[in-house]
């Protein structure tokens, strides 16, 4: 295939990728969008394989890689449980990062293939772009590995902080810059691999201080990085498709990070500096002892079933606790029974509920909850005032009214769901422990709140049983 034809094919693929993202503006068009993405990718790969000068041996190697990787990817995607989606996405990001490192290495050892010079004599500009792609790719890889370990529970979700951490990171960042400059001047392979190693270390150090609850931001940010890495490689090898796609993905991840940060009323810098949400974090503000508060009112699932049976309007507020307990299916069963009793059911989702953007929406969709019953914070917040029941299931910090009133609170200013305005609040929770932010939820002590202690799935099942009686 002539050069112009392959460029044209890349252009078509870029447009298809844009259409793929565009399709996601509506659930109805989203499946078509995903299809556009697949077709775009197929065109890109086939057009590249048909380029003049492709050796038969090389094509066989590529097809072997596609077959092996494709099989692994397909099996993973089929087997993964929807509650484990954030881990899977983090793992996938790490693969893009590592692939970028390998492509940079391939370009370094075979610059002729990309027309950027000869071995040991690569153009300076290309070396700059190569080191960018390499460094971002390596940071994406090790950062995503840590994010995966934290999300998958292979590593504690609490932040790992030590003295001089930020100084160390800043120093390593400066060292990385020096290495890149030296690499561009000398083009030495030793420096190439030193940049890779240092970037791996940096990615690792950047993510360990970030707590479990901030993972939605981290996952979005690494998503963004994987795009910038692809764009960096695109500049290195002068490929239009990689640049366009990298920019699309980079912008997408950046926007998601911004939305997540706004959902927590925190700046991205604040999140990245980390240390937020330690398991051992000091609970409740100083002096705000629980002694002078009204006692917590605990109820039984039977009580809850009785009250909900007589309610007109019920809003269900799912959080990470629902995902952990795999309770989405039984929540929908409860909602179905309540609908039969004549209640109006809707779901309220906070932007940072769960461990990745949109996580709760996917889980509810998995449980066959119609998506027009599921609402975002801005849409539904005003409706709590005339709701009879708010059923909060494993969402703590995002419902804490202290965010509106208590200036000393760590979560002050964070937009929250106004569940306390409902006539009755049921709060399903394992125990009295505070949320990830380490802040006690004053909602528990409100007179209209009834705590339902226990595993989210079991409690909801018991409610379902009482409703069926």
């Amino acid at each position, binding site marked *: 295939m002539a050069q112009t034809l392959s460029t044209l094919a890349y252009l078509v693929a870029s447009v298809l*990728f844009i259409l793929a993202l565009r399709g996601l503006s509506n659930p109805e068009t989203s499946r078509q969008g995903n299809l556009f993405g697949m077709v775009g990718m197929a065109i890109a790969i086939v057009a590249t394989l048909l380029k003049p000068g492709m050796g038969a041996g090389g094509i066989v190697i590529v097809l072997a890689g596609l077959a092996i990787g494709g099989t692994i990817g397909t099996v993973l995607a089929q087997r993964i449980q929807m509650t484990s989606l954030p881990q899977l996405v983090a793992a996938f990001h790490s693969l893009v990062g590592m692939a970028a490192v390998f492509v940079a290495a391939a370009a370094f*050892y075979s610059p002729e293939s990309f027309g950027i010079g000869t071995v040991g004599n690569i153009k300076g500009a290309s070396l700059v772009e190569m080191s960018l792609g390499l460094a971002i790719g390596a940071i994406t890889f090790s950062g995503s590995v840590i994010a995966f370990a934290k999300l998958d529970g292979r590593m504690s979700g609490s932040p790992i902080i030590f003295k001089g951490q930020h100084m160390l990171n800043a120093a390593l960042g400066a060292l990385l810059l020096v290495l890149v400059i030296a690499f561009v001047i000398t083009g030495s392979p030793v420096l190439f691999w030193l940049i890779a190693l240092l970037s791996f270390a940096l990615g690792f150090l950047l993510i360990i201080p970030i707590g479990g609850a901030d993972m939605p931001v981290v996952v979005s940010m690494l998503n963004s990085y*994987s795009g910038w890495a692809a764009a960096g*490689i695109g500049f290195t090898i002068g490929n239009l498709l990689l640049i366009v796609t990298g920019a*699309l993905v980079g912008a997408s991840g950046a926007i998601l990070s911004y939305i997540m940060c706004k959902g927590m009323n925190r700046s991205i810098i604040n999140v990245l500096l980390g240390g937020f949400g330690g398991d051992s974090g000091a609970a409740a503000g100083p002096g705000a002892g629980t002694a002078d508060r009204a006692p917590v009112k605990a109820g039984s699932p039977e009580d809850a079933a009785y009250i909900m049976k007589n309610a007109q309007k019920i809003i269900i507020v799912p959080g990470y606790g629902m995902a952990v307990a795999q309770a989405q299916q039984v929540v929908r069963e409860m909602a179905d029974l309540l609908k039969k009793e004549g209640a109006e059911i809707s779901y309220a989702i906070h932007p940072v509920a769960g461990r990745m953007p949109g996580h709760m929406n*996917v889980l509810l969709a998995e449980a066959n909850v119609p*998506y027009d019953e599921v609402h975002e914070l801005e849409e539904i917040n005003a409706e709590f005032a005339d709701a009879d029941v708010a059923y909060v299931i494993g969402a703590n910090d995002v419902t804490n009214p202290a965010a509106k009133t208590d200036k000393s609170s760590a979560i002050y200013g964070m937009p929250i769901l106004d569940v306390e305005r409902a006539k009755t609040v049921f709060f399903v929770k394992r125990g009295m422990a505070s949320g990830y932010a380490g802040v006690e939820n004053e909602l528990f002590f409100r007179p209209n709140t009834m705590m339902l202690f226990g595993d989210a799935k079991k409690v909801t099942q018991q409610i379902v049983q009482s409703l069926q009686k």
Partner: protein
Amino acid sequence: MNPIDIANQAAARANEALTLAEQARRLAEAAAPVAAAAEPFLLLLTIFLLACFVGYHVVWNVTPALHSPLMGVTNAISSVIVVGAVLATGLSDSIAAKIFGFLAVTLASVNIFGGFMVTRRMLAMFKKKGS
């Protein structure tokens, strides 16, 4: 003025013109590599910035309910980096490039297939329910 003088003057002018042309050629030659290096880069940079804008506008239109599938799709398409890996594997004679290319193709393929498949699974759940 006799014709010989005119001819001589014409010859001198012609020589001057030739010198000027030669100078211009040298300047152009000196500038060429800079221009040649800058031009494709500027073109790529333009494309990159425009694509950032397109991405910005398209992604703000994505409904929040579909943010997880959005990550799935962007994750799959960022594996377009496989194109670089295929070029390295197919066009190069260097063993190192072939090995790195193969590894990159394999990793990126996990992502391409896994990313699109998992997104498809997610989106299948967002079908409008009949009931």
